[in-house]
């Protein structure tokens, strides 16, 4: 394929200064923006209810860390993460379970098609009032909305993953006379794993967003609620702190999921592009 292949093999050593530059570069714009905000908030809108200098927000966050009430950082974050995780677990188990069945059986897929297409478009936010009516406020209300929201993408993606399993692999499993259970656990599920990990990553992201949304809209617990309370108490520094914290948590978890996905994929024999023959 021409002589370009060899260019990739001899990767030049990256000088230390370039490494440092590449490490710092993503931070330049955020730091610039924060500095701008600090100056603008102090000089242009010192008494604003909406904007606050990042330095004050940082202090407010520090204070909130110490607090152990509902609006304390630890309790609120744990609530949101906990309900997101619990809701995801339900949505995951049901979605992957049903998705695998539908993916492997064309008949089941075509039978369930209409029902799925009717139920899937229901926006999860529309269920917030229903959930509130049934469960009141708290854990169960949030978990059920998250479960609904994550069920559908897990279902669809798992179905696709199961459908795309190499038919030859299943034939090999049949030829080896593996039991249906062994077929599933030793061949089908591992073959689906790469796509399932991607689906999981998406599911985690959705779970977090939906959890926070439920809290902003109705549920008086968690990070979303703390954010709303900060706004209502006209504490723009705390509001900014929560907004950034929510962003950080979301970003951090996504990064973790990405690492997890790559690590697991590699253990399952997926060779990164750069190392392929």
């Amino acid at each position, binding site marked *: 394929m021409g002589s370009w292949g060899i260019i990739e093999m001899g990767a030049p050593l990256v000088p230390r200064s370039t490494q440092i530059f590449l490490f710092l570069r993503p931070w330049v*714009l955020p730091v610039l923006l924060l500095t701008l905000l600090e100056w603008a908030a102090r000089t242009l809108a010192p008494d604003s209810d909406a904007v606050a200098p990042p330095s004050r927000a940082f202090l407010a966050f520090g204070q909130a860390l110490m607090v152990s009430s509902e609006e304390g950082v630890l309790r609120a974050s744990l609530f949101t993460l906990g309900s997101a995780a619990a809701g995801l677990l339900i949505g995951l188990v049901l979605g992957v379970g049903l998705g695998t069945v539908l993916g492997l059986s064309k008949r089941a897929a075509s039978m369930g098609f209409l029902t799925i297409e009717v139920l899937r478009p229901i926006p999860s936010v529309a269920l917030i009032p229903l959930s509130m009516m049934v469960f009141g406020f708290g854990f169960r209300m949030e978990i059920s909305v998250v479960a609904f929201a994550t069920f559908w993408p897990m279902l669809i993606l798992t179905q696709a993953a199961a459908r795309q399993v190499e038919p030859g692999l299943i034939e090999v499993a049949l030829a080896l006379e593996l039991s249906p259970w062994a077929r599933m656990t030793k061949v089908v599920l591992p073959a689906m794993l790469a796509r399932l990990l991607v689906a999981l990553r998406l599911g985690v992201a959705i779970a977090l967003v939906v959890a926070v*949304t439920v809290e902003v809209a109705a549920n008086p617990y968690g990070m979303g609620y703390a954010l709303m309370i900060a706004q209502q108490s006209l504490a723009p520094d705390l509001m900014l702190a929560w907004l950034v914290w929510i962003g950080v948590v979301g970003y951090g978890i996504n990064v973790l999921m990405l690492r997890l996905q790559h690590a697991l994929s590699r253990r399952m024999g997926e060779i990164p592009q750069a190392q392929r023959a």
Partner: protein
Amino acid sequence: MSKQRVKQQLEALGVLALFIGLWWLASDQAWVSKVFLPTPEATLGSLIEGLHGDLLAFSANTVLRMLLGWLLASLIGITIGALVGSSETARAWIGPTLEFVRPLPASAVMPLAISLFGLSSGMVLSVVAFGSMWPVLLATVHGLASVHERLREVSSALQLSRSAFVFKIGLPNAMPDILAGMRLSMTVALIVAVVGEMIASQSGLGQAILLAARSFRASELFAGIALLSVIGFASNALLALVEKKLLKWQTH
């Protein structure tokens, strides 16, 4: 239509009918209290009654908010996305910050918007626009960044100007991504519109179902949910149709 296709469709309909039947049983037989689960016919009744009444106006409000916000978001998102995505330097410096904003829930911006604009229709619209801007912006950046090296070389071999590259090669190449992003944006727009109506007590389906839930009027609540589903489904289906038409060249 082949016999098999007919059989398949009948089976699918059968499953749906089964599902509705179960719903009816659960409500009628009080397996679940009628306070929480209205019967299908009660829901339908409320729906028809509501449509003759306020529900139509509420739906229109929600749809308008969603569409307007989405249009604004798409315009701004594609423009900024094109500017950032077409320049490797811009992508390198600005990209990471954009990636940070990606997982942020759109609703989280609502308190800030309330502080700035108060509890008004304009506030909801601004959050809808801001929130639904990101999927299409990021999709545009990605679509432009993913232009294959070969096409860039063709562009430089033909000595195309930077803007010619963006309009003739970059954006068309990004089209599948942009359209998918716009579909996602539409979903976000509906969600944020509904949440906004709930929080800011703005006239619309969001407020309607919240009030129905608070007064335990289950059939009205379900009617509202059904309407929201129809809106979500229809907008998605329409966009998917447009997408298919515009991307005719893809699968041949």
